[in-house]
């Protein structure tokens, strides 16, 4: 885990970048939803299924583990972003049949490979005007012992 990465529960007085995206448990989980009509999961959670338009959806915690499906690195700060660059950026395939766009803790694309095991973490994006760390979600490579 690189500097700046920390679990949400271990931090005090942090604020999530948006409410309802992930749990503050250890390990953390993304908060998605599942549609009772079509059975598909989605993320973030919506009251209306983005895939079949059913209104019969319910919140669902998503798996903390997934596999790397695509990745790159962001080398220049995009609009509205106050944190550091470079940072990893990619797509994680979760067992629920869902592919999630996410930050990656590994900013060097050469150190990642297709189908790599990854787990969800939270990380500090930046410190806000009131001095509180703002926390978002990311995926990190599973360390091989």
């Amino acid at each position, binding site marked *: 885990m690189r500097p700046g990465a920390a679990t949400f529960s271990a931090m005090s007085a942090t604020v999530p970048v948006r409410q309802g995206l992930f749990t503050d448990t250890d390990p953390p989980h993304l908060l998605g939803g599942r549609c009772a009509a079509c059975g598909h999961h989605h993320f973030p959670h919506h009251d209306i299924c983005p895939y079949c338009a059913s209104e019969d959806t319910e919140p669902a915690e998503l798996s903390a583990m997934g596999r790397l499906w695509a990745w790159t690195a962001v080398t220049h700060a995009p609009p509205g*972003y106050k944190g550091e660059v470079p940072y990893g950026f990619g797509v994680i395939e979760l067992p629920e049949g869902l592919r999630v766009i996410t930050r990656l803790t590994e900013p060097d694309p050469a150190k990642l490979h297709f189908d790599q095991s990854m787990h969800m973490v939270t990380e500090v994006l930046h410190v806000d005007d009131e001095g509180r760390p703002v926390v978002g979600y990311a995926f990190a490579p599973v360390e091989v012992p």
Partner: protein
Amino acid sequence: MSDVEVAGVGLHPFGRFEGVSISDMGVTAVRGALREAGVGKGGFQAAFCGTAYGGVATGHKVLGALGMTGMPIVDVEAGCASGAAALMLGSKAIGAGQYDTVVVFGVEKMPRGIIRSSFFEPWQEEAGLAATPAYFGLRAQRFMQTSGVTKDHLAAVVVKNRRHGAHNPDAMYRSDVEAADVLASRVVCEPLHLWMLCSPNEGAAAVVLRRADKGTSARHGAAVQLDSAVLRSHLPGAVLSESTPMAGLTDDTLPTPTTLAATAAYEEAGLGPRDIDVVECQDTDAARELMSYEELGLCAAGGAAEMLDAGVTSVGGRLPVNPSGGLLSKGEPLGASALGQVVELVHQLRGEAGARQVHGARVGLAHTVGRGANAGVVILRR
């Protein structure tokens, strides 16, 4: 839809123009198109203006500066396909008998740097998820993984389009480049290097559409028909769709917005990919052009690299793609880019494209795709 013809086209070059307003550029393009069509004040019944960053009533400002208002002026935003959306509305209105003659134009004056899009929520920007080139990079990586396309192919697309653009006086970049220099430019988002990405910039393009039975323009013997102008959005589900969802399904069988638009456009025109002689397609980045070969049905899945390598898509090949130099040479003023393609194809079909002329071209296809998702496909025929 062969009852609509392009009576005139006009362009303000694409580039960076300090001190020139978006209205100034629009006036240049619209005036040029009206002059070619022999249409003056009172000679058209509606106007459709594509722009993404122009703000409120951009089309009104352009036509106001020309002293030509009073008719309906519809401002249209559809991301990179804004001009195609405007063209669809204008041409269908003629086809439906609502108007005889309309002006369709696109204008843009983009901010510099990575495009800021109000499409993203503030939290997405704060989390660094509004990194537009990173989505291009991810899409390119997946495409390379499944298609046999390499970084050398991406560089070859840039070399091809810049070679074409060297002959286009209205392009932003008008010099040849070497593949080694493309690969030596800095990495923006792996696998994409700086020179593999188009530059957001400024410009304007305009066309006058007219019901075909109103007679062809006096100036141009070769009348160009608008056979189809189609706009489509994305189907939900694909994680790397231009709709930029935060998640998608593990389903690789969904047709892309480009394929949806192309399929409808071919049907509307009564043509297929084999009938096309020249293409202007969305080369936002070098990989995007190669993806478009497949999505437009110009080659089979997995055939883009071979098509490029064989020179098929170079001027002089069987099916030249982006003879104008593409967005990689012209830059991309969002609202104007789709109509810039149409202006290029009209010149090609009339045989007026000079050193970049595709000889004998009779049918041209223009393609744009971007945020929304929005995909536009336009087919023109002489």
